[in-house]
C-alpha cells in the first residue's frame, strides 16, 4: 500500500503536467464536426476531427458525416474550434474503415503529424474529442495492438471514449497520430476502438470526390461492392482452411470450424420442466461498416443450435416451427419504400450435406445499391424425431450469390454428432 502511494505521488504530477501541455499544444488542430439539416443553431449529427494538412484538410469518421454523403443537397457540414466556425466541404470518405476527409475553406494551421508505425502494445496514448458536444476533452489510455476478430482492422484501446468523440485523433507521446477514434464496445468498461493511420494515408492519396448526390451514391456503391467481395473472399478462404481444424461440438451436432474472422459464443440451456436441452453457438463479424438508411454491409451472423427432447417427440416437432419463426429478423416493409424492397420469401424442404432441412428465407433488396440484399435463412433438420439441429444465417448488405454460396458450404459442414 505504501509503495502504491509513493508511485502515485511520483507519477501523477508528471502525467498531469504532460497532459496539460499536450492539451495546449494540440488544441488549435482539433475541431468539432457538425451536420446541420436546416437550423443554424441545432445540429443533426456531431463528431470530432483534426487537421491533417496546412491548407485545411480535416480528418473525421465516415459515420459522423454519413447523412451528408447520403444527401448533400439537404445538409451542411460545419467545423468548429476555439478559432471559430468554418463551413467545410467533403473531400473523400472510406466507409469501410470509417474515416473521411473534409476541407475547411480559408483555414490554415499546423496539422498533426501521422505516425509511421502503429502504436506498440501497451504504449501510453491520449485521445481528444468532444463527448456529447459538451467540450473538447482529453482521455488517456493504452494501445493494445489490433483486434483479432473481424475483416476490418481496428486498434484495440483501453480508454473510455464517448459518443461525440468519434473522429478525434489518438496520439502517442511524440504528438503523432496513431489512429482515429471510432467506436466503443457497448456494455463493456472502457473498451474502445481506433482506425489505424494507414487507412488515412491511403485516403489522403485519393483525388477529391465530386460532391453530388449521384456521384456520392456511385462511390458508396463502389466501396460496398469492393468490401463485400473482400469479405466473401476472406470468409471463403478461412472456411476452406477451417476444414483442417478440429470440429465444433454443439450439443449433439457437429460443425467444421467456422472462419476465424467470426467472434463466437457458446451457450447451453436446459429447460428442466420441458425436458428439452438446447445448445447454442452464435457468431458474428465485428466492425462491419454500415451505410445510412440500409444499415450494415457485408455482415454475417451465424447461429447453430442443437435441441434434444426427453419428452414428447410429436410435440417437440410442434415447437420447432415457432422456434424457426422466432429467429426471423426480416421486418415488414411496405411496397414503394425508396430504400429497401418488400421482403420476399421462399420455403422448402432442402437436402444439404446428408440432412434434409426445412428452410425458410426472406430477402430484402437494396434499391439504391442494386444487387445487394439483406437475407435471412433459417434451417431446421427433419430427419430425427427426438433431436433437431437449427441453423440461422443472417446476412446484411450481401450479394445473393455470395450469401447462397456461403450458406451452402456452412450447412454442408454441419452434421449429427453421433450416428443413429
Amino acid at each position: 500500500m505504501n509503495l502504491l502511494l509513493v508511485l502515485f505521488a511520483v507519477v501523477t504530477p508528471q502525467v498531469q503536467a504532460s497532459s496539460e501541455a499536450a492539451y495546449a499544444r494540440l488544441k488549435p488542430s482539433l475541431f468539432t464536426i457538425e451536420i446541420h439539416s436546416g437550423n443554424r443553431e441545432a445540429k443533426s449529427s456531431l463528431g470530432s476531427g483534426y487537421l491533417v494538412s496546412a491548407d485545411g484538410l480535416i480528418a473525421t469518421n465516415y459515420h459522423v458525416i454519413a447523412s451528408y454523403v447520403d444527401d448533400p443537397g439537404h445538409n451542411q457540414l460545419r467545423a468548429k474550434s476555439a478559432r471559430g466556425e468554418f463551413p467545410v466541404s467533403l473531400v473523400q470518405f472510406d466507409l469501410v474503415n470509417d474515416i473521411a476527409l473534409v476541407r475547411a475553406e480559408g483555414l490554415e494551421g499546423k496539422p498533426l503529424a501521422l505516425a509511421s508505425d502503429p502504436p506498440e502494445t501497451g504504449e501510453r496514448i491520449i485521445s481528444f474529442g468532444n463527448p456529447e458536444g459538451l467540450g473538447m476533452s482529453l482521455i488517456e489510455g493504452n494501445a493494445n495492438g489490433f483486434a483479432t476478430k473481424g475483416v476490418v482492422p481496428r486498434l484495440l484501446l483501453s480508454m473510455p471514449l464517448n459518443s461525440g468523440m468519434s473522429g478525434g485523433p489518438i496520439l502517442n507521446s511524440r504528438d503523432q497520430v496513431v489512429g482515429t477514434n471510432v467506436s466503443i464496445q457497448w456494455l463493456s468498461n472502457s473498451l474502445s476502438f481506433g482506425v489505424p493511420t494507414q487507412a488515412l494515408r491511403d485516403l489522403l492519396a485519393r483525388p477529391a470526390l465530386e460532391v453530388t448526390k449521384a456521384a456520392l451514391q456511385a462511390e458508396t456503391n463502389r466501396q460496398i461492392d469492393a468490401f463485400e467481395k473482400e469479405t466473401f473472399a476472406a470468409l471463403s478462404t478461412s472456411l476452406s482452411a477451417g476444414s483442417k481444424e478440429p470440429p465444433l461440438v454443439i450439443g449433439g451436432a457437429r460443425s467444421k470450424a467456422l472462419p476465424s474472422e467470426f467472434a463466437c459464443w457458446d451457450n447451453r440451456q436446459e429447460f428442466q420442466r420441458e425436458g428439452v436441452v438446447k445448445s447454442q453457438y452464435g457468431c458474428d463479424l465485428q466492425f462491419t461498416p454500415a451505410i445510412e438508411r440500409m444499415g450494415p454491409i457485408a455482415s454475417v451472423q451465424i447461429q447453430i443450435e442443437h435441441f434434444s427432447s426427453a419428452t414428447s417427440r410429436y410435440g417437440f416437432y410442434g415447437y420447432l416451427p415457432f422456434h424457426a419463426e422466432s429467429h426471423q429478423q426480416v421486418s415488414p416493409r411496405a411496397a414503394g419504400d425508396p430504400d429497401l424492397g418488400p421482403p420476399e420469401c421462399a420455403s422448402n424442404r432442402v437436402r444439404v450435406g446428408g440432412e434434409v432441412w426445412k428452410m425458410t428465407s426472406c430477402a430484402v433488396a437494396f434499391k439504391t445499391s442494386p444487387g445487394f440484399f439483406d437475407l435471412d435463412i433459417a434451417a431446421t433438420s427433419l430427419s430425427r424425431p427426438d433431436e433437431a439441429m437449427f441453423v440461422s444465417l443472417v446476412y446484411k448488405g450481401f450479394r445473393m450469390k455470395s450469401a447462397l454460396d456461403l450458406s451452402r458450404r456452412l450447412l454442408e459442414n454441419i452434421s449429427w454428432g453421433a450416428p443413429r
Partner: protein
Amino acid sequence: MIVVRILRDGLTVREQVFHATPVSIGRAAGCDVVLTDASVSRDHAQIERGPDGALVIVDGAGTNGLYAGPRRVSAEPVVGRLRARLGLAEIEIEEVSSDATQPITLEDLHGLDQRRTPLTWAKYIAVAILALNLETVLMPDFWSPWNSQRFVAVVWQSASLLVAMLVLSSILLGLLKAAGRKVRMADVLRHFAVFAWLRPLAAVVSLLAYYALPDGPASTFRAMLPLLASVAFFAQAAAIRRRPPNRAFRWAWAMALLLVMAGVGFTGSYSARRGGQPEVDYNLQIPLPGGTTGPAVEFSEYAAELEAAGNRSADPAR
C-alpha cells in the same frame, strides 16, 4: 284432389280435401272452408277451375282482399303450393295427384319432425365440441413441451365453443326461418355436430399430404382444406330443411361462397403484400418411422427460388 290447409303461425292446424270445384272460402257457415277470423269476409274467395283446367283462387271483392305473398291480387293461379292470405287468415292450397305411391327416401325421413328434448341439443353440442377438440389435439403444437396447460386449454376451448355454437346456431336459425324454412334449433345443432368432423378430417388429410406432396403444394393444400370445409359447412347449412332436389342449390351456394372467400383471401394477401408482410411457411412435421421426411429439393433448386425472391424484392415496380 284439392287440399286446403289452414295455417296458424306458419303451421298447419286444419286440412280439408275436395274432389270438385268450386270451393268457397269465407266466414259464412255455408262456405266449404269456414274461416272464423273477424277480418275474413262472409264470402271471401273461391277456388275455381279455369277454361284450360288450371286451378285458380279468385277474390270475392270483400273488405280486406286476397293476398298472394305481399301482393294483393284479384285472382292467383295455384302452382305447386300457394300460400294465400284472406284478411288475417293464412291458407295453403295444393293440388295433389292420386298417382302411384312414392317410395320414401332417407332424406324424406330426416324431414319428419322428431321429438327433440334439451338432451338432443346437448348431444349435438357435445359431438361438435368433441370434433373440434380432436382437431386441436391432433396438431403437434398442442403437444409442444412449452404447452404445459393442455387440460386448461381444452376446457377453455370447449367453453368458448359452447357459447360460440349457441350464438352461431341462433343466427343460422334466424336466417333459415327468414328464408321460410320449417326449421328448429335442433336441426341447426345437428348440422354443427355432423360438419364439425370435417375439421379433424382436414387436419389428418393435410398431415398425410405433407409426407406425400412437395413442400409448396403441401402448404397450399394445408391452407385450402379448412377453407373447403367451411364452404361445405355453409353450403349444406343453406339447404337445411329445404325440399329436395338440393344438389344444384348446394353447388350454387358452394360456388358463391368459394368466390366470396377467394375474394376475401385475395384482398387479404394483396394488402399483406402492399404492407410488405413477409409470407413464410414454417410448417414442418416429425419424420415417419424410417426417417421419411417427404419430398425434398436439392440446395441448388432452393437457391434458384431464393434468387427469384430476391429479384421480386428488387423489382423497381414494387
